Structures are given as C-alpha cells and as structure tokens.
C-alpha cells in the first residue's frame, strides 16, 4: 500500500529532510527547497509511486537554477476589457483550437486567447507530425484512450478541414536482435496491449517497404493506423474553421492573473484588459499548472521535457524513410534496467522531407526552444541504429520543442476540483496532436455540463465543418496549374524556389480569417523558407510582399512576434543621421601597397595569437 509516511521516509533519506509530502485537497503535495531541478523531478517521480491519491502537486522550490523569463507580449491595451464571452479558451495550440472548433457547433460566444503572435507556436508546432497509433501507452490509460480515439477521427477531420493527411503506418523495429525469432510473441504482446491490428513484417517485405532500414533489422511490427500530418497546418485549419463558425481569436494576449470568488472565476486579467468569461478552458500547454494555480485549482504538476528533431533535405529523404520507423529498446545512455521504450522515430513528413527525433531532456524551462549540438548528435546516433544512412550533413534545420507531462504521465481532462467554472486539458504531452480531436469532444461535454447540459445549449445551425483550404500549387498537375494562372497570373510567379510557392499563394494566406502577417506565419502555413536555402532567397521577397499587401513600411515587418522586426528602416535615412561618425578616408597607394599593408597587419595578428596560444599552455 502506498502511504505518505513511507514516501516521507524515502524523501528524508534522499534529500536530508529538505522535502516534505502531505495531503491537501485530495492531492499529494510536495514542498520544500532543493537546489537542483533534476532532484525536484526525481522527488516528483518518487511521489507518484507512493501516492495514495490521484495526482501529485510538486511545489518544491528550485533555489539553484533560475528558469528563463516567460516570453511576454509587448502589447498593453484595453482591447478586451469587459469582454464577457461564454467560453474563454486559454492557449492557441492544437488542443485549444480543436476545442474552439468543437465548441463552435453550439451558439456560444467563444474567445480564444494566445500569448504568442501566432498559433501552434509551442509544443503543437514543434512536434514531428506523427499521428500515433497508440503503441506503448498502456500505463497511461487516459492517454491511450484519447490517442486511439483521436487517431480514428483523423481521416474525417482532415478531409473536412482540407488538411493533407496520410495514413502511412509505423514500423516498430526492435534493436535487440535476439527478439527477431520471437516476433510472434511480440505481436501477441502488442495485441494484448490493445493494438488489435499490429502485425509482424519480416525480411524482404520489410526492406522493400522501408529500404532505409539497416540490414541487421530482420523484422518489425507494423501498426497500420499510424499516420502523418503537418501540425501547423492542422492547428491553423482548426482555428480557421472555428473562426468561420463564429469563434474569436486574439494573439499577443497573456493571462496575468484571475479573480476567484467562492470557487468561481469572475475575471481573467490580461495585458489587453480584464475578461469576464462564464467558463474558462485551460489548454495552455506547459503553462497549464500556472493557469490552474491562478484559478485556485492546482491539483496537478507538470515537468517540462525538451526534445530535438532534425529535418533532412527532401532530396536525400527517399531512401531513409517512406512511412514512419521507430526503434524499440533501451535508449542509448539510459541506465535503468527496465526502461524499454519507443525512441528514435524517423518519419517522412507530408512534404517529403524526413524528420528524425527525438531525445528527451528534463529541463526547468518551459520555453527554451534553442538547439544544442549534443542533442542533435544524440538524435542522429539514436536513429542511426535503425536507419544507418542518416547523415547530419544532410540536415536543413533542427528544432526543439517542450512538452510537459504530469508526473503521473497521464492526461488531465477534467472539470475543476476546487473551482467550478474551469475545465482543464492539462499535461497533454506527446502524442497530444493525435489525441486533440478526442480530447476536444470530451472537453466540450464538460463545458456543456457547466451550462446545464447539452440540451440546454442551442446548436449553431450555421455550423459548417468544411474549411476552404488554401490552394497548394505543388499538389496540382500541369493542366490545373495552367487554368489557375489564367485566372490569376500571380499563380505563375514562383517566389520560393525550394518549395515552389507562388506569389498568389502568399497573398491568399495573408488574407485568411486568422491573422497572419509575419514571415514565420507564412512559413508555418505554406512553407516558403522551410526548404534547403532556409529563406536566404525568398525572405526579402516575401518581406516586400507582406509590406505591400498589408500596406506597412518595410521596417514594420516581423519575422515572428513583437520585437522581431527584420529591418530598422531606410538605411540612407539612418546613415544620414550618423554620417558625422563615419570617415570615408581613402588611402592612396598602389594595389601592391595595400596588399602589403594587409599582409603586415595579418602577420602581426598571427604572431599575437601564437603568443596567446603559448600563454594558454
């Protein structure tokens, strides 16, 4: 039997009495002070094993490490003051947007707020786009249920939204060779785990399907339900459909506090005014615990985990992975005995590139999206065990994302415990993208309950589940393209050479119903800048296009959010102001003199650096 006193003994032993566990509001609370974040995570994990209650709230203070400050919008106004929406959704990730769309089936006043300048800016947009089959989630039943249910909703959802989706299946490759003769046992195991259509693929059949797999992999389990989708496209499509059906979205809006009276949220304070919603939906990703705390309803804790993905150029991608391949076994560098997991996924994206990932790194920061060389080499080494031809040199970019699971590892999809008018979709870690449509359905049920049940809600008779998707020229054949160009010559002008994006596509996306006016915003929607030149050629051209379409001066065009303006204005104007500081002295002398002078300066420098080298020794 797990008990708090047993846990406290263990904690005492580990942390010298600096951490204490107690019960509060039917949760296990950890409090105290520790200097290292990794110890705090360890304490949280330990508490899960010895927890007589459902969830752990980890309130241990980290004294030794300071997290990076939260990215805050610069905007301060009263745009939303006195807004009284029926439902306020906090967070514009895939969960928040799926909920907004699902809610727009009813006649409700829906407001979704996002603190960043665009949607899918954090965990949602920083995953690899795999639509999970639900493999390996037995220990977290809620997660497994939502993942499997969500997976089955994808085909219909994506066809309604006009989002490209491919059910490619996933090969789970065992890195331990001893397993291959016993694959039928493994098939039974996975079927027992709830993966009813798992099947063994062996030898030639496997290598014909996935020629990139290493020759030492003789068998794999195939999960046909897995698929792939572009996470940005999906999130934005959900939001656009929600807006089409009456929802409102505002960016650069951050929750700063809440007023709670008698277990009821009466006001949500933001940098754009105080909103007075009837019901609040917490879909704030890594910040779900902070929002819960503001609402006086913190009954769970999350720990941020950072993962890095490597994107491989399309032209090398064909031989690496055709669907998704993952390895199953003991991840490199992990010491624990029983720690077999799915790790290292190599996936062919919707656009033909290959994404390899990911490592899992505990971190104190919820928004540290920087990449590190050690993560990249770890990802490459890990994935090379199944796809040996993977080469870091063929990478066109890397990206990191943070997902924040609860200490229990399972999702929290529930009404508030201490506060009545809040609903949480919290701790939605990987594979949250897959689970999103299913979670949204349940959240809407809970929201409806708060309004007195579904029957008391009026349905939105004008609800249209079909979104008019932007035209993607790259998918069209030659003749259709000709027809389009005849209707609008801008379809014939290609502005992004790597991804073949036309001027008309850029202009179209600038005018859609969810605001998009930054370089990254366009990149997330239709991909210019995501090819092999990474925007070297197209970014100034698209910069110009945004400026002329939005009637802005070039210095107001941003790469991403506020503070990311790309230029400082006309150089001539700036140079004119500073001209006194610059001297244009032109030294006279022949070419030879000039070269000789340069050589001398360089020689003196190299002498200096040699000397400093010696000093170091």
């Amino acid at each position, binding site marked *: 039997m797990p008990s708090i006193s047993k846990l406290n003994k263990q904690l005492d032993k580990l942390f010298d009495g600096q951490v204490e566990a107690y019960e509060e509001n039917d949760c296990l609370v950890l409090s105290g002070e520790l200097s290292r974040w990794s110890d705090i995570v360890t304490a949280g994990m330990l508490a899960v094993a010895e927890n007589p209650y459902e969830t752990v709230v980890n309130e241990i203070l980290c004294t030794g490490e300071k997290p990076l400050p939260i990215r805050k919008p610069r905007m301060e106004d009263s745009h939303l003051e006195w807004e009284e929406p029926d439902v306020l959704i906090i967070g514009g990730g895939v969960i928040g947007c799926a909920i907004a769309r699902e809610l727009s089936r009813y006649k409700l006043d829906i407001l979704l707020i996002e603190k960043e300048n665009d949607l899918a800016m954090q965990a949602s947009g920083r995953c690899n786009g795999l639509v999970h089959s639900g493999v390996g989630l037995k220990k977290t039943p809620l997660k497994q249920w939502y993942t499997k249910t969500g997976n089955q909703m994808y085909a219909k959802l994506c066809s309604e939204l006009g989002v490209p989706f491919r059910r490619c299946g996933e090969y789970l490759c065992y890195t331990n060779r001893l397993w291959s003769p016993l694959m039928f046992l493994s098939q039974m195991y996975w079927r027992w785990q709830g993966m009813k259509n798992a099947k063994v693929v062996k030898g030639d059949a496997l290598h014909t399907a996935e020629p990139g797999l290493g020759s030492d992999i003789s068998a794999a389990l195939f999960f046909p339900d897995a698929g792939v989708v572009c996470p940005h496209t999906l999130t934005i499509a959900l939001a656009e459909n929600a807006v089409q059906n009456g929802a409102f979205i505002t960016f650069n809006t951050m929750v700063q506090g809440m007023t709670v009276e008698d277990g009821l949220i009466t006001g949500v304070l933001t940098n754009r005014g105080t909103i007075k919603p009837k019901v609040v939906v917490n879909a704030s990703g890594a910040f779900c615990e902070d929002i819960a705390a503001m609402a006086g309803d913190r009954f769970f804790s999350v720990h941020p985990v950072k993962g890095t993905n490597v994107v491989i150029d399309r032209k090398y991608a064909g031989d690496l992975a055709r669907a998704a391949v993952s390895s199953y076994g003991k991840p490199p560098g992990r010491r624990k005995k029983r720690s077999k997991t799915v790790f290292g996924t190599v996936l062919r994206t919707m656009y033909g590139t290959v994404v390899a990932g990911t490592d899992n790194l505990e971190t104190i920061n919820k928004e540290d999206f920087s990449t590190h060389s050690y993560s990249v080499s770890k990802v490459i080494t890990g994935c090379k065990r199944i796809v040996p031809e993977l080469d870091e040199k063929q990478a066109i970019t890397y990206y990191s994302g943070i997902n924040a699971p609860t200490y229990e590892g399972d999702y929290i999809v529930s009404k508030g415990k201490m506060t009545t008018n809040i609903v949480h979709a919290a701790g939605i870690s990987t594979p949250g993208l897959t689970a999103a449509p299913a979670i949204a359905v349940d959240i809407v049920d809970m929201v409806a309950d708060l309004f007195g049940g579904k029957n008391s809600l009026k349905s939105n008779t004008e609800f249209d589940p079909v979104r008019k998707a932007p035209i993607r020229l790259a998918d069209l054949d030659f003749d259709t393209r000709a027809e389009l160009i005849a209707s609008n010559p801008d379809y014939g002008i290609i502005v992004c050479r790597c991804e073949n994006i036309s001027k008309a596509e850029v202009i179209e996306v600038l005018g859609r119903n969810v605001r998009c006016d930054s370089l990254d915003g366009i990149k997330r929607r239709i991909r210019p800048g995501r090819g092999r030149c990474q925007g070297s050629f197209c970014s100034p051209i698209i910069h110009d296009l945004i400026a002329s379409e939005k009637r802005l001066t070039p210095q107001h065009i941003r790469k991403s959010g506020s503070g990311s303006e790309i230029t400082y204005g006309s150089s*001539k104007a700036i140079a004119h102001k500073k001209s006194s500081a610059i001297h244009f002295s032109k030294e006279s002398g022949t070419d030879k003199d000039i070269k000789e002078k340069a050589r001398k300066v360089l020689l003196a420098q190299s002498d200096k650096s040699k000397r400093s080298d010696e000093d170091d020794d």
Partner: protein
Amino acid sequence: MTISRFGVTVIGGGPAGIAAAIAASVDGASVLLIERGARLGGMLKQCIHDGFGSERYGEQLTGPEYAFKDISTLQETNVVVMLQTTILDIFSNDNIIQMNLCNRHGTVIAETKSVILATGSREKTAIQTNIHGTKPTGVMTAGTAQYYLNVMGQLPVQRCIILGSDDAALITARRLTIEGAKVAGVYEPSDKPAGQLKNVSQCLFEYEIPLELGHTVTRTFGSQRLRAVELCRVDKAGVPIRGSEKIEKCDGLILSTGLIPENEIAEKLGVPISKDTNGPICDQNNMTLIGGVFTCGNAMNVFDKVEYVSQSGENAGRSASRYMPQERRVIEITAGKEILTLVPQYIDYDILFGDTVMYFRCASERRDATVRVLVDGREVFAQKYEILRPAVTEKIVVNLAAGLTAESNITLRIE
C-alpha cells in the same frame, strides 16, 4: 498549352547564363534563356561595389553596370528571354530534353536539343555552419543582407558580427559600415582570411573593423531579436575549443561561410556531381557526363571572379550550339592531392580544338610554386606562381591537342 522548340536552352540569367546565351546565339543556335527572378543579372544586381570587369570590359565596373553591359549585348541577339519563369519538371527523351515551365502567362512546354545549367549557387545557412541556439531575427546570409541593403535600401542590423572572411563577407562589412551599422568584428575559423588581401585592407582595416582569425560562432541567443552570439576559438581542424567561449552582444549575425552550387535540376537529369567542386563533372567543352547537358558558372564550380564565370558561360554556349549526339571518348585528368578543385575533370578526345582552359584551386597556401600539366609524363605546360592561395581560383590555358591519344594520361601537379 504551347510547345516551343529550341536548339539551346540556358537555365539561369546571371552572368554565366547571359554569356552562354549570347555565345550560343552568336554561333547561330536558337536560344531560350530562362530566369526565375524578375530581372536578369543574378547576384550582380546586389553587388553594387566596383571592381568588376577590368579583364572583360577594360574598366572598373559595379555589379549592376557589368550586368547592364552583358544585358545590352544580349538584347542585340535573337535570344528568347523568359523572366519569372520556373522549371517545374525536366526530363530527357531520345536526345531531346523537355521542360515544363510556368510563368505569369501560363504553362509552357519547351523542348531543346541541349541545355546549359547556369543555376549559380546558394549560401550555406546557419545550420550548415553548425550554429546552434535560438532562431531569432537578425541571423542571415551575406547575400540576404546585401539584398536588404542594396536592393531594398533597408538596414537589417545595427551592431553585427560577420562570420566568414571571403570577399562577400568583407564587402558586406564595408557596405554595412557605410550605411550606418556597426560591424563589431569579422570572424574567420581558419588561420588565413578567405578573401583577397586587397579587400581585407580596403574593406576592414580602413574602416577599423577588427578581423579575428581562428574563431567561429557556436551559438545564438535571443527569442525574438538576436541579443548575443557565443564566439569560440577553433583548433586547426576547425573544432571549437572548449573553455574559449565568449559572449558578444549584437543584433545581427551575417554568415558568409561558403557557397553551394545549386544543382537540383542537374540531379533531376541524372548528371553526376563532383564531390570536390559540388558541381557537375564536365569536360573541357563544359559538357557534363550526360550528353547535351552543359554546365557553367558557379553551378559548375564556385569562382571568385565574375570574369571567369562569364568565360565559362561563353565556352558552354559555344559548345552547346555545336552539340551533336555522338559516342564520347573521355580522358580523366589526374589531379594531385595538392589540388583542391579542378574543372574540367575530363577531356573529350574527339571534340578537342585549340586551347583548353582549366580552373583550379590549391589545397593549401604555397609560395614560389610551379604548376605543371603532363601528358604521358611529357610536360606540356608549366607556370610559376609567386603565391597560390586556396581562396583564389587560378586559370590556366593549355594546349593539349598535340600528341594526345585516346589512351593518354593527363596530370595536373603543383610543385
């Protein structure tokens, strides 16, 4: 849908492509020139400094002036120019190459007997330079910075660091300084500047811009705008030395760490690419190992002089207009380890007229070196150089025709 037929199609309207189109047209071919941008001239349009054309036009020109002279000559020919036109697909069929094109007028199918790939090069990005960290505004390649500055008239940085010291880096440093930005330093991983010494002196030292050799940038900081970069000393192999990191505050990081020939179209046609030049392997007539497919300019080999680009284009244009499908006998040129890159890599034995132009770079700096070309051990060419630098492409003109057989060995050596 219209189908047009041409003798020669030139892909790319930069200096190489224009020169190739002119040469092929003068030679009597019907020529199509395809450019994806709105104007001809390629990168010359944004290189507004002078120093171009002393060899070709006998005077010091700016990039746009050089391009203007080229374009004026082009306008006197019968070359069909298609601007803002993109190749959607290209394939070869029975010695005829078909291209599916699109532009604002619609889609076009063009057929051509021979094609010249003058697609130029692109710059290495931050990822390819092993820079990690965040991805804020302010990290850009020198070409992008030049476009903002010289074409759009916008200042993209206020206080920046430049990584790389080739001529593009040096000239961008000077341009930025003149336009009111502060260049806090030019950092070069190797122990010698990659650009011409003349430029080091004229662009950096005269503007008091420090040059730091043996350094690289390893990380970027800043969530929206670049706030700082991490600089690091590197060892001889170019690996950052741990413990030598220092943080430099800046709002811009400009990368000029090398060019990669753009050969995605060549790859579609199945043209073998050299691992040394990253461009197609070709013979002295600029024909790749696929008959009827020619290469020139920076797509073939990254040159540091626009004149060589134009000359290689002219050579490709002439050869392409005279192209007839036939069996080829080629001899590979053996280059010693002291040679970094060499074009052409092959000599076509059957179409060898007059002098052969070769371009090479040495692997390391050498003083008082002699470059020799040997045919079956017999010296056919020798030239002394006071200094040979890896950054500089050298051009030699050799007469190979005399005494050459189909089984000969041709060797290029530096001693």
